[in-house]
């Protein structure tokens, strides 16, 4: 008894712990990307965002519609990486990242935040149809209709002799119903095997035998079977069978860490860069100028070098030459990108000490 009580308590405690973990289950990656880590936070998510964007939240999915927004910044689906020769891979359109070298020889990539600019643009798909063609079709259909009414349709009615074949079916049904009638009048006690008539295809032979009163109780089962078939063949009734196959469902989940690694890092030697991107406008009409600002901070405790900032502009942002500014000495390269816009590359010349920061600004026209 004591063992049972202890077991129940243990199971209850375990279940409470597992149920508590439901709030920390992995959720939609799109939300996770925005910092939402639990189900509870997901439910609160619409309250955490900017009030101007909240109106675009879909109440069903809880996600933001971004079709009307230009998005720029962050790191897209494929994670940007830098080769040993500083070749940048997987830099997608809309990406904004910075990479830098650490004192211990590593090259790290840091994405920026994303900026959203409400700038819907409308296009049109046009279809032109000619009404003249429709008029021709109407005239043709009238001609065909009159032709068949006068000549062909009459001949086709002769072809309805097929109805005679259908009446032949009626005769068959009549015989079958005769079986039913005779069955009701069977009161004879003569037993004679009709085992050969296990199939209702022999209904005619049945009738002959019945007329001769050779029917008996043993044949009633065959008669009953035949009557059921007859009714089914008449099409008036049918046997309907409905089966619900319910398969037991089981879901199991085994989760566990296979191995543990503990990385001891001296907090006094960290290399970290923070990249913040802002836009001068939250909404813009096509043709308006938007000023984009990138601020990068060395928030680590060590010197970092070769700080390079890459902004792969989205298709509808057109870089305006001559508008790029930097607070630190920097190289600057502009290249066309796959989206029909430009990739901006800022190479900060001097290493960045801990706590130092720089600011880059440039202007774009919303297409």
């Amino acid at each position, binding site marked *: 008894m004591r063992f049972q009580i202890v077991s129940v308590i243990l199971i209850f405690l375990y279940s409470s712990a597992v149920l508590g973990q439901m709030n920390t289950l992995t959720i939609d990656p799109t939300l996770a990307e925005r910092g939402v880590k639990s189900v509870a936070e997901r439910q609160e998510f619409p309250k955490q965002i900017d009030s101007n964007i909240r109106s675009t939240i879909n*109440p069903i999915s809880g996600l933001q519609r971004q*079709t009307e927004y230009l998005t720029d910044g962050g790191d897209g689906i494929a994670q940007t990486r830098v080769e040993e020769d500083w070749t940048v891979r997987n830099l997608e359109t809309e990406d904004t990242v910075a990479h830098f070298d650490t004192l211990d020889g590593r090259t790290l990539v840091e994405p920026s935040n994303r900026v959203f600019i409400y700038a819907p643009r409308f296009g*049109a798909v046009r279809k032109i149809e000619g009404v003249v063609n429709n008029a021709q079709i109407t005239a043709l259909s009238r001609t065909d209709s009159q032709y068949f009414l006068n000549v062909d349709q009459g001949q086709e009615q002769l072809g309805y002799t097929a109805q005679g074949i259908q009446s032949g079916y009626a005769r068959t049904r009549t015989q079958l119903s005769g079986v039913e009638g005779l069955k009701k009048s069977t009161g004879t006690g003569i037993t004679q095997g009709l085992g050969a008539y296990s199939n209702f295809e022999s209904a005619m032979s049945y009738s002959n035998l019945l007329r001769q009163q050779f029917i008996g109780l043993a044949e009633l089962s065959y008669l009953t079977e035949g009557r059921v078939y007859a009714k089914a063949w008449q099409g008036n009734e049918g046997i309907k069978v409905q089966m619900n196959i319910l398969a037991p469902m089981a879901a199991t989940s085994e989760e566990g860490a296979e191995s543990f690694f503990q990385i001891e890092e001296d907090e006094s030697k960290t290399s970290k860069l923070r990249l913040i991107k802002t836009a001068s406008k939250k909404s813009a009409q096509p043709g308006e100028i938007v000023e984009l600002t990138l601020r990068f901070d060395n928030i680590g405790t060590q010197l970092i070098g070769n700080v390079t900032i890459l902004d792969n502009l989205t298709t*509808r942002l057109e870089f305006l030459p001559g508008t790029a500014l930097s607070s630190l000495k920097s190289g600057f390269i502009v290249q066309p990108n796959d989206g029909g816009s430009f990739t901006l590359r800022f190479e900060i010349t001097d290493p960045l000490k801990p706590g130092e920061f720089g600011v880059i600004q440039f202007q774009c026209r919303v297409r």
Partner: protein
Amino acid sequence: MIKVFYTITAFLFVTLLYAQIPVAPSGNPASNPYVPVSQYYQPVKINAPEGTNITLAIDEKFVQRQATPYAVGLLVGNDYRLRITDIPFQPGREVFPTVQVIARTYPPRGQELEFPIRIDITQEDIELALDGKFVTRVIYLENPQTALPVRGDLGVQISTDVSGGTNPITVAATMGQPVAVVRMGGRIPNTLGVTDPAFFHGSPPWIAFDKTPSNRYEMTRYQSTPNRINPFISGKPTIPLR
């Protein structure tokens, strides 16, 4: 007592089993990005050739003419009959297109009138309709990630022609989100002096917005909160980059 124990154990086992099942993902927002819209007047700006006038109907009668571009609020899902008059090079002639808004937009709060759905009716469209053709224009909201890398502020709406056997809504859906349909053809109102409810589609209600300024492709900008964020703690970037 044993039965009670096993019952509780079984209940807890089932509870634990379902607790292990992950929460279903929210799904792709693009698959169902819209919800039914009721009683929302979607701002629409209708552009037509310079000099033309547009008239909407109230109670199955066309009311005061308005110069284009004309900004109105239309209920989503309803058909509105327009009358376009004073057509350049077509004196005395008029066309009666219909406009149907099939999806709304979600601009930032307070900026609804700044970002209406733009519907362009060209001189060619009108002349095709006067020539007996049936012109369908499906307006779509362009997907920014697949947008054409061309400027959209040059006064001409991006337009694509499709062949007669193609559904323009299907084509528009590949480019973005269809939001409105304009149909223009030879339909004219009943001239026998009796009402023609089918022609006006029941005269659904609409809202007239402020008249647009002389610049054809600019709406009046209403109060807009500046969103300049000063990222500089000290100093402003001064080194020009070439």
